[in-house]
């Protein structure tokens, strides 16, 4: 009898904990002061490893530069282009940065052709590029050299 009472009481404690958590969250919402939410779906380091593009190839094709790469999961992808070899944090805010859509829908094979003349007019004879993977509303950048914890250390280089 005593053990049963103990178990019942323990269950009540757990239930009251869950109940108070639920009520607290609802109360915070009800008073109108919506607290800063956790960033939903922000990629984890495991996601960064898993979605890393492989077989990145940059080849000249007639008047264009073709950039291709593969991913293990179907994702959308972009390229970030700039004339300077800048860290990604600076590239994303740089006024001369150009973002090019590679795969506007979910895909495993990613390919885009860039106009060689337009690129040389814009960036000169060298273009630096980061590959961007879109994952649940977030952008994961990759360069030719990547520190998984700190981000891409150096971008890909396209010699026109």
């Amino acid at each position, binding site marked *: 009898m005593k053990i049963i009472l103990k178990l019942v*009481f323990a269950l009540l404690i757990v239930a009251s904990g869950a109940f108070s958590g639920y009520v607290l969250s609802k109360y915070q919402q009800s008073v109108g002061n919506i607290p800063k939410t956790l960033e939903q*779906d922000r990629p984890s380091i495991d996601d960064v490893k898993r979605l890393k593009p492989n077989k990145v190839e940059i080849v000249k094709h007639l008047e264009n530069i073709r950039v291709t790469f593969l991913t293990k999961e179907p994702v959308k992808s972009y390229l970030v282009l700039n004339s300077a070899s800048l860290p990604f944090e600076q590239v994303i805010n740089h006024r001369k940065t150009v973002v*090019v859509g590679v795969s506007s829908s979910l895909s495993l094979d990613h390919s885009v052709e860039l106009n060689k003349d337009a690129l040389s007019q814009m960036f000169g004879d060298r273009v630096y590029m980061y590959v961007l993977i879109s994952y649940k509303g977030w952008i994961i950048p990759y360069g030719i050299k990547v520190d998984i914890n700190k981000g891409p250390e150096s971008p890909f280089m396209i010699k026109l």
Partner: protein
Amino acid sequence: MDTNNKGQGDLQNDNNQAPPTADLNSTNQGNVGLEGLFNSKTQPNSTVDTNSDILPEEFKDLAQDGFIEASNSDLSNPADSSDSSSTVKKDEEWSSNKELSSEDRPDPDNVSNTTSKDSNTGIVKQQSEGEGTQEVREPLQDTTQDRTGTETSFEDLFGISDEDDNNSESLQATTLKADNNGNVSEGASGIAGAIGAFLTGVFWILVLLVTALAFVIAYLYGYKGRFDVRYLKELTQQKICEYCVNEAKLTSIKSLVFKKEPEVSPSPTTLEENIKKMVAEQFKVVCKDRAYWEISFNLSVQSNEPIVDLSVNFEPALEIQELYVDSSKIDFSKKGEEYTFSFASNVTKRVRLLVKVNKEIKKYTLKIKGKGGTKESFMLAGFPDCKSELTVSVNPTKGQQNDSDTLLPSNSVSVTPPRTGIASFVLPAVGIIIVLVGTYLYLFGGLINLGQRFKE
């Protein structure tokens, strides 16, 4: 004991012929003491000698019929009672604790009493001249005296204090057992008690941990409406991609660059011409509470651009608190009453708008348009008070709409009313009652257990 008192043993009855009525079951033959009067003991094997002359005639008949089973020898041989514990009977004249026959009743002035006390057992033996020995048990005291006269406390001798006496559990927890050689060892009940206490502690620690986990899960569930392990990762500071950026930021950069230098854009289209078709359907309004509503709908935009900028606004104006696209929170910019955000084209996504409502206004018009105004559509919806049943009419308004196929709103809107009124009070009340009842049951069970221990 030298006494001729027989039968009832009335000290005042000199002829000793009183019928053995109430004292037939007494252990005190001849002498009737307090124990015999108030706590009589039976002697089942005793019989009555019906041939004895001691019994009156009327009792002889009863004895022959088997109604009386008291031994005549017990009644007639008071000498046997000399070894029995002496009893005390109140005498009117003496008021003494002695038992004496009327014949041997001494002069009270000549009675000499000898009292001795066993210091170990606390038994006081009181002996009167010609009376035998009377033992009076005195309660044990905490102090005793050794032979040197030094007062030694009971605690010093036995290591048990008054507090220990009061703590029955501590005494019960340690059971000492002596083997045949007289060696005293601690019993297994002490180890079992220790293990039980340890397991009890572990149990309650686990309960607390589970409670904390339940609190976190319930909080996140209540706040987000769903639970994801990823939330726990963030809470526990597990490694997440710190340098990853929100897609909305990226698209804003892109549009800025394309605007300034459209000639280098790989896509020849411009924002003014990029939206070909826009479909909004499956509207749903959820009243989060009386102040906030969540308006959600499926939106798809066909465009040459992978990402387009859309603007939404309400008439009358509503303040948009948060904006989600497929459960991802999206940053938006506010310009006047218009809220602009980036949206992926050619894919149907669920858009959720968390808006702060004005209770006095019952109907709103939601306007969704592509940037530049070339494609613009209207959706008129009626938003009732959260308390009442929703009656929403969704009517596409032509307005500046160039293409009638631009917006295809659904004709039905479902609304989940919030928990208001009684429900908002019932749930907390039920929770509190459950906790109180549980506490009461637990304490009541503890009291029952405590009572049983006292009984034992």
